């Protein structure tokens, strides 16, 4: 009788525990979907690799990292799990880590990857713990080629508008030097001959060559960015287009205008719109990654162009605050919290970080102006996903291992805090850094990701300014 009674009690306790776990599975879920907006080479893939490595090492191996991620204290985390995100290929974390182990940087992203990071956190309140023992914090990340992002503003332009803007851009600023070949080619090109597949191919190929050369020389606003990716599913040889001189775009009956206009429409409808719908789904939080070194590496003009590019990109997203009811009613979310992040901050001595942050704040002015009249919370962050440099002999110096595996000390002049303070004929050449052998320890020594995610996970209504 006694055995039967204790078995009954055990069973009841088991059912209660299972029920509360299941209830917690259903009820207590916090899903954070981030739009991670970053131009090509801004460090998106490395950031994903780092945050996953850090969380795993912190929770499973007990390493001290991400100390400022206070909303997810390691002692309260039951497990961390990565799951695929519906509709996306899984993020190739293993390949990225293998590349680092082979002392190569992870390959640039050439298609969209998605993953869910599920962190199960135990309830600490003794009473709540009985009813809902845990909460699942779910991060949904999507990695994609930065080149796609540059193309989004094209959706809101006609072919003629885009073509005229593209001509104006390639005829000014630092890119005009790299556009010389393209312009000369167009100058020689006989637009009186009707467009054929081969002639369209020639024109598109020459324009793509310009895009590639300009990209390798730090130009950020290059459209269509999708033409830069050989893996792109859009057939640029079959349906390609290029900007045409205004003498042609002003004549809508011109055969070249007609064919490029049709190709442009197809590009928008069959390629860009599905990407925007699937990859750039509207979310509540946005991380905008900015590689300031891409600009500093070249010139002040490049930095101004980066500022302009960010400003254009902000047009492609919907900002605003949503009420609790609107969220529950399933209305399309609006971005209510934005983090502007300057990546690779370890490539500057620590003493220059305040200047870099001030520069970042100025670079984002145009983008911020897009939501200046809305109650959007935003903040600026400096992040190094992997610490590849060591302290130098002075506060203005740092040391790193270059790609020839020599150890080099680089001494920096002061980084300007305002764009206008940067000399027009000077630049900060980017350091030719090799992947360190001790990459895991250096990922764990990375800085700023904890501040960034702590900010994004907290529910404060509004903040401004610095980290």
């Amino acid at each position, binding site marked *: 009788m006694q055995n039967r009674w204790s078995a009954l009690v055990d069973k009841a306790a088991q059912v209660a525990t299972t029920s509360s776990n299941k209830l917690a599975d259903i009820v207590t879920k916090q899903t954070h979907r981030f739009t991670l907006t970053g131009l090509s080479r801004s460090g998106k893939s490395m950031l994903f690799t780092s945050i996953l490595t850090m969380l795993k090492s912190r929770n499973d*191996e*007990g*390493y*001290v*990292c991400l*100390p*400022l991620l*206070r909303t997810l*204290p390691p*002692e309260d985390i039951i497990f961390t799990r990565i799951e695929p995100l519906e509709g996306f290929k899984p993020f190739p974390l293993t390949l990225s880590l293998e590349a680092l182990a082979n002392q190569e940087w992870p390959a640039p992203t050439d298609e969209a990857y998605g993953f869910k990071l599920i962190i199960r956190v135990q309830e600490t309140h003794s009473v709540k713990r009985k009813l809902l023992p845990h909460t699942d914090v779910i991060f949904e990340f999507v990695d994609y080629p930065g080149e796609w992002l540059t193309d989004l503003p094209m959706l809101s332009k006609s072919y003629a508008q885009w073509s005229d803007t593209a*001509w104006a851009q390639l*005829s000014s600023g630092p890119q*005009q*030097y790299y556009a*010389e070949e393209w*312009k*000369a080619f*167009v*100058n020689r*090109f006989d*637009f*009186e001959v*009707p467009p054929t597949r081969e002639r369209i191919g020639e024109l598109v190929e020459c324009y793509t060559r310009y895009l590639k050369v300009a990209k390798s020389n730090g130009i950020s606003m290059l459209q269509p960015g999708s033409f830069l990716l050989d893996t792109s599913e859009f057939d640029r040889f079959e349906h390609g287009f290029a900007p045409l*001189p205004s*003498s*042609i775009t002003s*004549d809508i009956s011109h*055969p070249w205008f007609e064919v490029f206009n049709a190709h442009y429409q197809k590009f928008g409808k069959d390629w860009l719109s599905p990407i925007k719908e699937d990859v750039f789904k509207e979310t509540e939080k946005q991380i905008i990654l900015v590689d300031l070194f891409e600009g500093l590496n*070249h*010139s002040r003009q490049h930095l101004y162009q980066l500022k302009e590019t960010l400003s254009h990109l902000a047009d492609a997203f919907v900002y605003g605050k949503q009420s609790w009811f609107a969220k529950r009613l399933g209305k399309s979310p609006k971005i209510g919290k934005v983090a502007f992040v300057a990546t690779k901050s370890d490539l500057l001595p*620590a003493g220059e970080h305040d200047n870099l942050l001030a520069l970042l704040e100025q670079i984002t002015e145009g983008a911020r102006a897009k939501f200046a009249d809305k109650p959007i919370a935003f903040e600026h962050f400096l992040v190094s996903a992997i*610490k590849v440099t*060591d302290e130098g002999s002075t506060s203005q110096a740092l*040391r*790193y*291992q270059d790609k020839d595996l*020599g*150890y*080099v*000390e*680089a*001494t*920096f*002049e002061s980084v300007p805090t305002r764009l206008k303070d940067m000399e027009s*004929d*000077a*630049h*900060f*050449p980017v*350091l030719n850094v090799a992947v360190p*052998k*001790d990459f*895991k*320890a*250096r990922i*764990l*020594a990375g*800085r700023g990701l904890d*501040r960034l995610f702590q900010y994004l996970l907290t529910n404060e209504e509004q903040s401004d300014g610095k*980290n």
Partner: protein
Amino acid sequence: MAKTNNSDTNTVESVPKPAYRAKIVQQPLDIAPPEQALPERIEPERWQPPVKKSRLSVGFATLGLALTTVIGFMLFDAVTTLTSNAAQYPIITSFLGIMLTGVVGGLGYLSAREYLGYRRVNSALLDSSDIQLLEQQSKAGESLDVAQVAHVIDRHGTHFSADSYAAFCYQRYLLHIHVDMTGNERLALYHDNVTQKVQKKAREVLNQEAVTAGSMAFISPNNLLQTAAILWVSFRTIRKVAQVYGLKPSASGNWKLMGVLAQNIAAQGIVDLATDEIMSQVSGSLSAKFVENAAEAVAAGALNVRLGKALMKLLK
């Protein structure tokens, strides 16, 4: 088809290749790059209250000396009673003098130690209030000076006794600190890793002790033993909670706690009287005795929690 003039491109002029002056000077070094060490690892929490090794403490030695001295004087009195001339017994007089010196020295040492402990606790409490003030400023959105925060926290951290839970948490806090952290971030980390955790652990210890107090009260056959048991558990609670905080309450704090303890014992006595009276009115059965002891156990547990909370308030 009309001849089209590619007018936009006719203005193409040779643009000079951009050339910029580098604002970085690079110099190869003849040394190998240092290897980055992996960060420290946080081991699972296994902190237990330290067990004191049994040894003769100075306090007991002093008590022993005092007793010896009393006995010595009694002997001396006895000897002087027996002999009319004390000067005839110089050895005994010297011995008693030494004993007296020992007692005075021991008492002096205990007083000095209590004074130093008092100073240390007061200093810790002062730092604690500084930390609370900084936390208020941080909550108000003020940007705190890193050096000031680091100074206040480091000073507070040095007061914890080495084997306490607070010292254990403080060491963990130090593992998390990076040079690039702001004052506000350091303070928040200290709050998470030390203040909050120490409070949580103290509550756990207190809950355990409340259960012990309740159990002791429940099984005590009479009021005298019950009072003795509660006294014992109360002293144990004070010691264990103090071990968590890494601070010993000062003499004045002890007096406050003694006041709470006395109130607890009085309250427990009233509970005893009340339950006895109720039970005598109801019946004298075994179940009535069970209910009476259970009520007393609950009261004992609650009163012990009261004592512990008074101590936590004192040390917080």
